[in-house]
């Protein structure tokens, strides 16, 4: 029949037992909201990782020294090979070779000095990252100067003690917006460097990330002179000439380094990472995280779903007698099923919609330092599952009851 009639009966059924309807709705609401929020937290954190990695640029390679290949200690060919694997400034220079490495654009060796304290006019600051490098590092790392000037090749060759500081360092040392730090002399672990520029903010994108503006850049030569000594470099950044030549650049770099280090690809004492591989490693980590959160949320949705099943089963069972009455006065099977179907739809769709609302609103807040990003699939999935559960466990017992002979439904206690 007569959908409207069934809808009216269904609405009466819902409102006749307000408390039970509210609890059913609440069960679905919590399940759906939990899935949406937790998946959003997972997605948000992986988004944060991706964002911070994308600043590296897509066509850079990072070369690091590693412990060497499996055959490292048993290598033939002379004692010099048994030394600790090292990357040197010379390695970096060898990579700038238009003949052997046409795909390599800029190269920047990097040294890092650890636990550096900056002092100026009585103010002191513990520097997060103190990097010694070449001028090409700036463009490689997408760095620009907010105020002052960058150091240039002349500074590098002349081993001038000049420095570029991030805004966190500058603000700590001179106060205010830090711009007045330009031109000041600052002691880094006692060695005086002249600040010639302030780096443009990289920003700290979310609470649990380290401050990317707490850093100092200086010419590698000057840093080796004063803070780190003349040993190996921590890593070498290589920029391919374009995004398409990254793979070629990687091959060229490894050929040159294999030759210089007298190793083969199996015994290589260094590793090359491109931003792609870092990204995929980080992405897979955060995906695992998202899956874990999603699993927890799915369990809560499942528990909510079981609650809904329970209430729906009880509702229909305790109304078996009512179903019998309705059949006795001439209700068709479709009338009965329709009534409970609409009732289940009202409860589960309303609960699901409220859950989506709560989930989306809840995702606007920062949760444990992560800004959640609502994933559309989680909304669709959570809503769909909750509605399906509500429908199935509303319709199935109602269908069973409607199939009873009227007298059996009437006798049901």
């Amino acid at each position: 029949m007569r959908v409207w009639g069934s809808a009216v009966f269904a609405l009466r059924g819902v409102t006749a037992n307000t408390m039970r309807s509210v609890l059913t709705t609440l069960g679905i609401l919590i399940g759906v909201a939990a899935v949406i929020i937790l998946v959003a937290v997972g997605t948000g954190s992986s988004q944060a990782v991706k964002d911070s990695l994308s600043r590296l640029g897509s066509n850079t390679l990072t070369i690091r020294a590693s412990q060497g290949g499996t055959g490292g200690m048993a290598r033939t060919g002379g004692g010099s090979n048994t030394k600790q694997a090292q990357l040197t400034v010379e390695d970096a220079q060898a990579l700038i070779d238009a003949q052997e490495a046409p795909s390599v654009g800029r190269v920047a060796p990097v040294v890092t000095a650890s636990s550096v304290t900056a002092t100026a006019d009585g103010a002191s600051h513990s520097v997060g990252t103190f990097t010694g490098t070449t001028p090409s590092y700036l463009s490689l790392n997408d760095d620009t100067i907010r105020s002052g000037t960058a150091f240039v090749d002349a500074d590098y060759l002349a081993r001038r003690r000049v420095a570029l500081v991030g805004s966190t360092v500058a603000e700590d040392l001179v106060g205010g917006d830090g711009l007045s730090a330009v031109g000041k002399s600052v002691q880094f672990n006692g060695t005086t460097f002249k600040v010639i520029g302030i780096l443009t903010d990289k920003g700290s994108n979310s609470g649990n990330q380290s401050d990317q503006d707490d850093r100092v850049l200086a010419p590698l030569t000057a840093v080796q002179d004063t803070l780190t000594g003349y040993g190996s470099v921590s890593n070498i950044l290589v920029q391919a000439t374009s995004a398409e030549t990254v793979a070629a650049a990687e091959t060229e770099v490894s050929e040159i380094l294999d030759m210089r280090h007298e190793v083969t690809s199996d015994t290589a004492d260094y590793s090359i990472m491109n931003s792609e591989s870092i990204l995929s490693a980080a992405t897979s980590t955060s995906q695992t995280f998202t899956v874990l959160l999603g699993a927890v949320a799915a369990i809560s949705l499942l528990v909510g779903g079981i609650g809904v099943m329970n209430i729906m089963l009880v509702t229909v069972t305790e109304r078996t007698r009512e179903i019998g009455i309705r059949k006795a006065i001439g209700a068709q099977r479709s009338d009965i099923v329709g009534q409970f179907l609409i009732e289940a739809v009202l409860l589960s769709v309303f609960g699901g919609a409220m859950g989506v609302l709560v989930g989306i609103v809840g995702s606007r807040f920062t949760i444990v330092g992560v800004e959640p990003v609502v994933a559309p699939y989680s909304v669709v999935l959570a809503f769909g599952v909750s509605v399906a559960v509500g429908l199935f466990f509303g319709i199935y017992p109602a269908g069973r009851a409607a199939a009873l002979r009227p007298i059996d439904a009437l006798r049901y206690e």
Partner: protein
Amino acid sequence: MNTPALELRGITKVYGQGETAVQAVAGVDLVVEHGEHVAVMGASGSGKSTLMHVLGCLDTPTSGTYRLGGLDTGALDDRRLALLRNRRIGFVFQSFNLIPRTTALANVELPLAYAGVRGKVRKERAQAALDRVGLANRVDHLPSQLSGGQQQRVAIARAIVTEPLLLLADEPTGALDSHSTEEVLQLFDQLNAEGRTIVVITHEEEVAARSGRVLRMFDGKVYQDERRVGRARTPAHRSQRDVGEVVR
């Protein structure tokens, strides 16, 4: 020749199977003419309720044929049986069986709603049926706000609102005090006087005394069929159109 209102041939009903099988109705042949007022009496377990459920198409007999207004109910599917219950049979239960938390008016409207009668007409007819049982001023009351007698009268209004051929009542006064019993019985008398066929199950002689024909059952069989002189009614005046027309 007129078809009888009810015609039962060799109706049996067996519950359970094998050794535990119980024969609740053991072969009943019965013909009820239009406009008759029949009382079925018997101790509990005599099969009278089971017979009533068969008459009301709430249950199907194990064997035998049951014709309602000439229509063989055994040949009908679920959908047609529901239509038959809706249009041709009004059922009054001992425990009223009103839908809880639903007003008297809405309860009476229910069979009309299932019959597809719409909005305004439905309300008017339900209202008229409640007037008929003397509850015009109780339409918006919930069953829980009505006395037993009033609830039973709502149930009767619900049973007659579709103008059924047959009014079946299963111990309609069993749960009522004597005053309410009298009201309900008078109502049945009036309805019968208007030409409705009524079959009442009861174990009270007082109730049976008001009907024109008393069937006594024992062990699933009718052992006495007594027509009372002076209570016999003239055949019904109301239309006796074939049930088949409606159900088809």
